[in-house]
């Protein structure tokens, strides 16, 4: 995928660029807000990654300008501003995701992938499939190899989130934000407890595992082994 990265700090920029390039993306970089506005409005990118604190025109203002011009490319804001109002401000300004520094590059790579492959219209889909696992979004039922699997409401939400991002790494933070709407880290193993139960229901008794743990990153659901 072709990505745009706005980041003025040399070390951070080369680090992120390296991580994204390793993940198979093509990255255009720029150092100032006006450059980002120019590049994003004159090229087709899959995702735009904007650092919030850059010279001349900050990332959020650049994004607002782009949205005003009708550029709807998915955008992630990178920021050291972890204020209670800052995230809301970022999302209201047109960001699709908001990542607080410092973050693991695996987290950013996972979020970029999740954003880029976001289906244009989620409402049109009524059935999610991964291998022989099916989730009927209308009936809210799950079956694998034709066998019905009973899930609790939050397990269903978790599975739906994983299946919507099949083949992609989903991090703990992404799960906390999207399934539980937690923008903080609980002290307890909330994710691990739910994932172990979901795994027991989805994979136990079947030949192939669909849910895979990616060490140090998160989880991935896919039919073929990683």
């Amino acid at each position: 995928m072709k990505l745009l990265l706005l980041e003025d700090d040399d070390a951070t920029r080369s680090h992120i660029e390296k991580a994204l390039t390793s993940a198979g993306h093509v990255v255009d970089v720029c150092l100032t807000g006006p450059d980002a506005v120019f590049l994003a409005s004159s090229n087709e990118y899959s995702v735009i990654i904007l650092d919030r604190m850059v010279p001349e025109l900050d990332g959020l203002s650049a994004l607002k300008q782009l949205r005003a011009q009708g550029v709807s490319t998915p955008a992630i804001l990178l920021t050291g501003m972890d204020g209670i109002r800052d995230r809301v401000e970022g999302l209201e300004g047109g960001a699709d995701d908001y990542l607080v520094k410092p973050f693991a590059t695996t987290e950013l790579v996972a979020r970029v992938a999740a954003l880029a492959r976001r289906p244009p219209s989620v409402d049109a889909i009524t059935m999610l499939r991964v291998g022989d696992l099916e989730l009927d979004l209308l009936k809210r039922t799950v079956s694998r190899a034709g066998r019905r699997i009973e899930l609790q409401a939050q397990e269903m939400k978790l599975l739906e989130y994983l299946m919507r991002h099949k083949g992609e790494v989903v991090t703990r933070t992404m799960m906390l934000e999207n399934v539980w709407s937690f923008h903080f880290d609980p002290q307890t193993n909330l994710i691990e407890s739910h994932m172990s139960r979901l795994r027991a229901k989805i994979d136990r008794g079947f030949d192939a595992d669909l849910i895979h743990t990616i060490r140090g990153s998160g989880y991935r659901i896919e039919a073929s082994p990683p």
Partner: protein
Amino acid sequence: MKKTSSFNSAAFRFALLIAGLFAVGSIVLLTIVEHSLRAYAAEATAVGLRSELAVLTEDWPDGGKQEVIDSIRRRQRSAFEQPFHYLLLDADSKRLAGDLPVTAARPGWGRVTFVDDRPQLGEPSDAETFQTLGTRLSDGSLLVVATDTFDVQSVRHRLVAFTIGSSIALTILALIGGYLIGLMFLRRLDRVNGAVARIMSGDMTERLPAIGMSAEFDHLSTNLNAMLDRIAALMEGLRQVSTDIAHDLRTPLTRLQQRLEAMRGSESEAAYETGISDALTQIGEIHVIFRALLRIGQIEGGERGSLVRIDLSELMRRLEEAYQPVAEDAGKTLRAAIDDGIAVVGDAELIAQLLTNLIDNALVHTPPGTNITFALHEGAAGVVVMVSDNGPGVPADQHGKILRRFYRLDQSRHTPGAGLGLALVASIAALHGAELLLEDNEPGLRIHLRFAAAACS
């Protein structure tokens, strides 16, 4: 600090302005009065002259000129003070009667100045201006009657003198008053400025004295003091956060340093892998502490998102469902007793964080086999959230302390966490005006959180 002189004070400038306005007002008033007086006097003089002329010429057609001459002479000889002077000239301009100078000889209205040779008793005989009215008689002779305008002039002069005098006196009085009020005001403000100077030089316990003068000034100093209290509290919070960061991040940073040092000289790649994983975990913990500290600082500084009506019953049910598996995995039971349809007004994200922190604490700091109860009900006292357990509990004398940052009980030293969970709970509760109570559950700990109920919408 810059000092203001009394002459420069607002009170003095105000007095100066009032004095100026008064002076302008006096001049305007005087002009109007003088104008009216002049008009009245002119009218009275004209009426007098016209009627005197009419009386003298009344018998003119019958009595002829001699009658007029006799009339004039009679009037001039009269023992009573006469307001009029006369001049009768024949057609050849020869004086027939009267004492007016010939310069007054003109028909119609006119003025003449001469020395009255009939001075009033005790009054100096100065040159005076007289109003004249002349008329031609049918034989061509000219009759002029004059009367002085002295009384009107004198009244005008006195009026002007009085107005100027009183204006000056009042202006001086206003200025002295303004100066004194300014001086008094500045003396009072000097005390306030002194207090401000002490505050600026770092004494944050100093407060402004009452200014006096009036209720609104006292109200102002009360408000400023309330603002100073708030600033002092924020500064204390900031100092606390800085101290906490400096002091309490040292421990995890030291551990990190030790881990990295231990990796040096490792022979195997596996040891390196493990070392790096441990170091990253350690860094993750440092981030958690750092974020929690910053968040507590922000919340105590009054920062929050938008306040909305939160369906607390629904939120707590979701949390119960989220935490059931966690409790189960830890060998504990989580029982919920949640009443329906209870709402509070608050920041949804912060309330969720507060509740998860309470459940997290109950799960982390209790041994396996513990029963945890998670309850919500609404009574006369408001909305009450209760999280209780039958674990080891917390000694009563420690109840207040465990709400402080980084305070950890000896028994929980071996459990994960940095001692910030309950500090965050306390700051979020305070931000929402909720009351936080810790009680002995006999055995275990019971935490009560009392919110004001949201108005039904």
